[in-house]
């Protein structure tokens, strides 16, 4: 395997930057590329890649931050679960600080609820085994990268007969969100597709992108990966031949990971889901199949998801679909900061507002 730093080589980065500039010049018009994935948003902001991009090239963030698109009602449902007697609530760290009515999971913890941060649902299953008198509930958020881990953990819990483990399902699927962006979003010329979601899905679900005349490249997360994706997208546009290509071939196969998809399909079935600021998208989430409903914490504890309006003035929904840049939100950096966030795009470390705030890239585009 190449050295870990190989995909950060400054000389190769300069070479790609020159290619990108030349292709942008050849195109002779302004181009907007959307990075769909929140992990890409952070990688781009952190690496300062935009400084290497020509002025005619604009990068726009998409809806791929799981915490950001989780409706406030689901946060409140998780807080209700945390307050139940004998419940240990586990979740990923980014979920803890999302504000809702009555506080956050973090404030629920300060008030005495047993809320624990976990990196893997499997860790929570271990807690359930070790503490049989507790009901361990995992607040499951994530896209196709993360969902197979939950499917496999639920299957393991079933196999091992662990009766005190369940999941509050808040999973969301990337292709329906892309479809929503394509249908209603701004003028996007090409998509930087999420590398690790694609490691599971493969390329087939993205055919809707070239069908709509846009370019698409699956990208990795190192600076050279992202620059290569931009180069490939501009080349597609210059050729006038939009298609789906993989720029992250060391990790992504055209067929994805069929075993991971099989596990997802075994445990879950598609269900309509709400996306913060976007609304309900058909079949864009997952529900437990009847046979696995005992693992659905909402059902086990009779937890409803309240309908909650987004905070006043917060434009996260428009930011998430690339219609508004973070700086264009009147709350950005003033009322809404990472220390005292109003909306989820400022809470999650992967939210584009937080990335923009922390790495100091300003302006109506990112420059």
């Amino acid at each position, binding site marked *: *395997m*190449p050295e*870990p730093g*190989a*995909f950060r080589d400054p000389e*190769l980065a300069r*070479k*790609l930057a*020159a*290619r990108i500039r*030349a*292709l942008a*010049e*050849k195109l002779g018009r302004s181009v907007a590329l959307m990075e769909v*994935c*929140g*992990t890409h948003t952070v990688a781009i902001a952190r690496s300062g890649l935009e400084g290497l991009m020509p002025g005619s090239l604009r990068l726009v963030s998409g809806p*791929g*931050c*799981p*915490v950001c698109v989780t409706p406030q009602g689901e946060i409140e449902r998780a807080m209700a679960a945390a307050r139940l007697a004998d419940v240990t609530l586990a979740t*990923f760290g*980014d979920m803890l600080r999302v504000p809702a009515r009555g506080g956050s999971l973090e404030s629920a913890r300060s008030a005495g609820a047993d809320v624990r941060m976990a*990196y*893997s*649902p*499997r*860790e929570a299953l271990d807690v359930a085994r070790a503490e049989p008198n507790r009901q361990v509930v995992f607040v499951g*958020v*994530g*896209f196709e*990268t*993360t969902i*197979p*881990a939950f499917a*496999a953990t639920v*299957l*393991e819990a079933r196999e091992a007969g662990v009766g005190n483990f369940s999941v509050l399902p808040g999973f969301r699927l990337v292709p329906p969100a892309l479809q929503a962006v394509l249908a209603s979003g701004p003028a996007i010329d090409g998509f930087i597709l*999420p*590398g*690790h*979601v694609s*490691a*599971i899905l493969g390329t087939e679900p993205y055919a809707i992108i070239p069908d709509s005349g846009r370019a698409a490249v699956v990208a990795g*997360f190192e600076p*050279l990966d992202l620059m*290569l994706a931009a180069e490939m997208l501009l080349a597609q546009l210059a050729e006038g031949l939009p298609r789906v290509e993989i*720029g992250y*071939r*060391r*990790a*992504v*196969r055209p067929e994805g*990971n069929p*075993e*991971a998809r099989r*596990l997802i399909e075994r445990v879950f079935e598609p269900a309509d889901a709400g996306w913060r600021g976007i609304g309900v998208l058909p079949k864009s989430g997952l529900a437990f199949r009847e046979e696995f409903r005992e693992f659905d914490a909402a059902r086990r504890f009779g937890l409803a998801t309240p309908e909650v309006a987004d905070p006043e003035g917060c434009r996260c929904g428009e930011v998430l679909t690339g219609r508004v840049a973070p700086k264009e939100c009147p709350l950005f950096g003033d009322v809404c900061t990472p220390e005292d966030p109003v909306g989820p795009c400022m809470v*999650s470390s*992967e939210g584009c507002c937080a990335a923009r705030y922390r790495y100091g890239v300003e302006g109506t585009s990112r420059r």
Partner: protein
Amino acid sequence: MCLAVPGKISAIDGRSATIDYGGGLTRPAALDLIPDARVGEYVLVHAGYAISRLDDEEAEETLKLIREMGHPDA
């Protein structure tokens, strides 16, 4: 949230593997999603599960592609 960390499988015990992340750091990961993985292979690990193999030849190919890129005659 879609961060995945590359590491090398140094041991396998049933469906669990020991992943070597270099610098003396090893951690367990589940192999449920790549059941036929073998010791010595590189994988990406996310949320405690190996989600994809890393292909050494493809990695070299991508670097070679960039190295050999000419300046476009725009």
